[in-house]
């Protein structure tokens, strides 16, 4: 490919999306087939130190397609992006977002603000989703270094972006995960408390929603737990997430599967 030079009137600026259009490279996100199942559940919670995200690992077609999918990605050091919807489109969406933020940073010699990132994704969702049945719904959570706090953004299928001051949930298991969060969430929770509550919400979703996978003790596959604080994006190591889910599982076994009160 020759050097991509533009004159001042057609310059795509720091937007990677515009650049692809100028170069006639299609955004290779496939349109939906007839069955746009939100085969996932991801929760993001705001806490004192930043944000916590927990996501299940299952991808579902007619049967279970994958048990170890990773639905939370590091968009950049202080931003996590999670996806629900068609897996192929979602993975591509993550790739484009990561590249877009990095592209902006290199072009401008400055990092895009967290709000700038969330707004940029609105346009990307519109590009990807409109004209086809809705296929990708992301969740963006990160630590805003300009305002020194964790922030969570949810989207609708048309690209509308909504900032949440407590928690965000996406995917097919939303009713179950959200119920758990609504009952358990308090103002000013710590990182450790949010990890516990987020894990419980995913456990609930995995327990009730056929498209969401819970902890898989047989294969040793556990939901992914990510924190984003002033130190940046960190994924909890597998041994720790195992302990978190084993604890919930033991409580649930003791109560013979009933969830409620102290036995949650």
């Amino acid at each position, binding site marked *: *490919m020759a050097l*991509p*030079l533009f004159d001042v009137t057609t310059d795509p600026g720091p937007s990677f999306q515009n650049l692809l259009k100028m170069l006639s490279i299609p955004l290779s996100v496939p349109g939906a087939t007839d069955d746009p199942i939100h085969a996932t559940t991801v929760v993001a919670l705001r806490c004192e130190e930043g944000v916590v995200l927990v996501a299940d690992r299952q991808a579902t077609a007619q049967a279970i397609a994958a048990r170890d999918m990773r639905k939370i990605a590091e968009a950049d050091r202080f931003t996590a992006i999670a996806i629900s919807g068609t897996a192929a489109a979602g993975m591509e969406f993550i*790739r484009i977002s990561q*590249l877009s933020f990095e592209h902006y940073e*290199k*072009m401008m*010699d400055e990092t895009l603000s967290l709000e700038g990132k969330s707004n940029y994704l609105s346009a990307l969702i519109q590009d990807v989703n409109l004209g086809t049945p809705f296929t990708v719904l992301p969740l963006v959570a990160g630590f805003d270094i300009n305002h020194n706090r964790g922030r969570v953004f949810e989207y609708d299928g048309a690209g509308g972006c909504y900032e949440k001051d407590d928690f965000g949930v996406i995917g097919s298991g939303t009713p179950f995960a959200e119920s758990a969060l609504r009952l358990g969430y308090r103002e000013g929770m710590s990182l450790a408390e949010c990890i516990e509550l987020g894990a419980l919400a995913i456990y609930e979703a995995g327990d009730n929603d056929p498209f969401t996978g819970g902890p898989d003790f047989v294969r040793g596959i556990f939901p992914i737990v990510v924190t984003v604080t002033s130190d940046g994006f960190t994924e909890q190591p597998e041994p720790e997430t195992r302990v978190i889910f084993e604890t919930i599982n033991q409580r649930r076994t003791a109560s013979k599967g009933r969830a409620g009160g102290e036995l949650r």
Partner: protein
Amino acid sequence: MTMPFYVTPEQQMKDRAEYAQKGIARGRSLIACIYDYGVLLVAENPSASLNKISEIYDRIGFAGVGKYNEFHELRSAGVRWADSTGFRYSREDVDARSLANVYAQYLGTSFTDGGKPLEVEVLVAQLAIRNKPTKIYHIAFEGTITDETRFAVLGGDSETIRTRFVSEGDDVTTLALTLQRAVRALSGPERSIPASDLEVARLEDLGARRTFNRLSDDFVGQLLA
């Protein structure tokens, strides 16, 4: 009837080269050198925001001297080239040699074709990975590519700086020592350049995918002390 003046091709090229060289010589120089863990890029640049050195890709850095708007345009085009190539194929397929070639193609065409020749010299540096070695490609204003094995000097006074740098020793050594040598070569014996007037960046594996990072004035001060 007026006859156009005949100018021999030799004269024409000479004039254009002279024009470009003059433009380049007006700015300060820069030096890129390989040290034991990566590539160091050092430029004399009193401006803290108008950069001469920048990141192109995970393992590729860029540096330019001459007219700011011209090498800045090349820099942006390089980032666009790299990001779109990486998107279309894979991150591994973004290669400094290909980028150096497209730069050379563009500079060469601008030099021979009608318009004003570009008053820039640029450099593309790549940090080694698997089958790709650490490389420094120097692309001159007329599109000549040189594949430098140890270091490259860009800018007006490059021959003097080159001689000074070589006289300090030609071995691959630590970051601090390499930086000290580079700064001494840039400044010459009569003056010293304060850390705030230096723009320093490196390509080094520090555990992240992206290997380019700028060195702060404080860190540069420490390394020079």
